[in-house]
């Protein structure tokens, strides 16, 4: 802060020296005019104070060196005294005018900068909805704007984000911050911003700017909190809705096979009903079929809850699709007896990285959906083809009725059913589980109406972590 005054004094001294060398060549009026130069220069370059200092210095030097009697502060001629005073007045007035101008300019520039910083901060905070990134941005911006050594944002006593100066020379900072600013917020979130700045303490205007920054940050945090609560409420409402849909669907769905089993068992045990051997076999078959059906239902419910809670993690291994599909067809036994199941998977089809048990579930659900809607004695084809060299395309093709185009996507939604629930049984879970499983494998599933048939398509990546299977060759 001393610098400008020294420069002003030096400018006056320099001019004095030069004038002293050429004092014979200039009249006193010219010398006085020349002395105005360092004064104007000081005021313009370094502001009001140095300008005034320059004016006083010029006044004294002019008097001391160039007004007779020389090398003395006394003034012999009255007119010279008048000239000297006029000089002083002019010099001071010029300094003042220029200096004020400078100050105005400086404060305008500073305000402009503050406005820019603030604008940048609010732009950076816009759209951020999680506390972590908001506090991170806040700390970073404060650190940049105030040239701080370190900024830490603390929410509810827990440090959330720290930002260090970019030219961090790893100097040791005291544990206690140089300044603590409150992160005021309406809804009980007590936050604080800790600022370390070792070189110069923050000025009043900087503190004011800092508090604007923190209130911006607090607003953003507040907004994020509100959004989160709203989301949570929505999620809760949604899961409530799902639960009641699940309960009504499941209880209906569980009762259907249970009633078949109960009716069959009670007639088999009844003394009053006499059954011929074929009728007995039918009833027994029905019991077994319905038990399998119940078991499949429970499996679907478990998978659904795993998908819902995000705990469905495929245990990938290299598998052959043909083996999985053939195993499923064999396992489904009686359930697919009324249809012809055709496996169309080339023998040379590559291995796919999938979870065997989950893929079984996908095939079970797609096939049982197909045989449920397709007329008896028709074909259900399971076909696998390569799609490019990155994906396998698997199709389950049945000759069932078309689904209106507008519902093609919705059939993969939970509990969504195109037909009325009392016509064909089903929870509306099977396809949404397929979707969850396929997507967990990084694939895509969709349905399409084709001439004469209805097709479920899904893709599966052929690579696992970017690699194809490596099998050592021999002989």
């Amino acid at each position, binding site marked *: 802060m001393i610098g400008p005054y020294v420069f002003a004094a030096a400018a006056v001294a320099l001019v004095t020296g030069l004038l002293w060398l050429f004092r014979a060549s200039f009249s006193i009026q010219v010398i006085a005019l020349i002395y105005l130069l360092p004064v104007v220069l000081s005021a313009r370059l370094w502001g009001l104070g140095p300008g005034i200092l320059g004016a006083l210095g010029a006044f004294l030097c002019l008097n001391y060196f160039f007004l007779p009697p020389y090398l003395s502060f006394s003034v012999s001629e009255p007119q010279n005294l008048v000239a000297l005073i006029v000089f002083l007045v002019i010099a001071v007035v010029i300094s003042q005018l220029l200096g004020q101008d400078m100050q105005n300019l400086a404060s305008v520039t500073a305000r402009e900068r503050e406005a820019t910083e603030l604008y940048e901060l609010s732009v950076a905070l816009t759209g951020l909805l999680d506390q972590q990134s908001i506090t991170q941005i806040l700390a970073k911006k404060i650190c940049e704007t105030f040239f701080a050594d370190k900024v830490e944002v603390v929410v509810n006593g827990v440090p959330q984000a720290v930002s260090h100066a970019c030219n961090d020379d790893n100097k040791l900072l005291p544990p206690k911050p140089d300044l603590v600013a409150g992160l005021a917020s309406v809804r009980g979130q007590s936050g604080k911003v800790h600022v370390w700045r070792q070189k110069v303490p923050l000025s009043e205007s900087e503190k004011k700017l800092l508090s604007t920054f923190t209130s911006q940050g607090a607003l953003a945090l507040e907004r994020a909190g509100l959004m989160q609560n709203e989301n949570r409420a929505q999620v809760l409402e949604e899961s409530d809705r799902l639960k009641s849909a699940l309960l009504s669907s499941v209880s209906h769905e569980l009762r259907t096979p249970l009633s078949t089993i109960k009716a069959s068992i009670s007639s088999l045990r009844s003394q009053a009903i006499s059954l011929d051997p074929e009728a007995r076999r039918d009833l027994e078959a029905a019991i*077994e079929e319905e038990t399998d059906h119940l*078991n499949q239902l429970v499996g679907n419910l478990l998978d659904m809850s795993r998908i819902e809670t995000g705990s469905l993690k495929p*245990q990938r291994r290299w*598998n*052959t699709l043909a083996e999985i599909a053939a195993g499923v067809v064999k396992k489904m036994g009686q359930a697919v007896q009324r249809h012809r199941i055709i496996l169309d998977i080339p*023998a040379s089809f590559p*291995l796919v990285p999938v979870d*065997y*048990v989950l893929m079984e579930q996908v095939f079970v659900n797609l096939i049982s959906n197909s045989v449920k809607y397709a007329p008896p004695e028709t074909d259900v084809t399971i076909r696998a083809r390569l799609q490019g060299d990155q994906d396998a395309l698997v199709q389950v093709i049945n000759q069932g009725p078309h689904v209106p185009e507008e519902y093609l996507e919705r059939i993969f939604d939970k509990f969504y059913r195109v037909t009325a629930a009392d016509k064909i049984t089903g929870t509306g879970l099977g396809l949404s589980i397929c979707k969850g499983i396929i997507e967990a494998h990084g694939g895509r599933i969709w349905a399409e109406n084709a001439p004469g048939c209805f097709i479920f398509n899904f893709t599966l990546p052929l690579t696992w972590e970017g690699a194809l299977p*490596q099998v050592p060759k021999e002989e």
Partner: protein
Amino acid sequence: MEPHILVIDDEPQILRALRTILTAKQFRVTTASRGGEGLTLAAAQQPDLVILDLSLPDMDGVVVCERLREWTQVPIIVLSVRDGERDKVTALDKGADDYLTKPFGIEELLARIRVALKHSAQAQGAPNPVILAGPITIDLARHVVTRDGEEVKLTATEFKLVAYLAGHADRVLTHQAILNNVWGSADIDHTEYLRVYIGQLRKKLEANPDQPRYLLTEPGVGYRLLTDV
């Protein structure tokens, strides 16, 4: 004397059903509803076979399995509602011979019991060097595999694989166990080797490789060679 089966399961309905069915099938049946009780009965009565549930009130079925294996080679068939691959693999690694997921068909259970009893009877006699599975014969001593009487050319690895399966015929062998024994411990994660070589074996040995009857897949767990009982 009829074979003696010990059933350890905490669900009384399952115990009742199994006791009724197995007794009707000419087995002698003892039941236990807790793991500790099961272990005591196994030691006192020396059953010919143990059917074990994994969820027991006092200890995990896997622990029961381990304890039994400390002193006996009695065949153990695990029955469980847990159908995760990991549960099956753990139980098999801890010494179970077979695994059935509840609900199960009784025919399936009886078949597994027959196989397990046959093998434990064989284990007491001399090991059988020739294994028969339908049209397939695997001669472990002479390193010859035939199908319908004709010799089938196998590569060295293919023979090693089929020999390992035949040496533990009718038992569920986990991927890891097979890979470890055929390829070595460095390759126990390479199930893709197994998929490829089992595929090749099926092409050479099965009438319909897509619907294998002898080289069976245990979904997510491993493989089993089904032999003539």
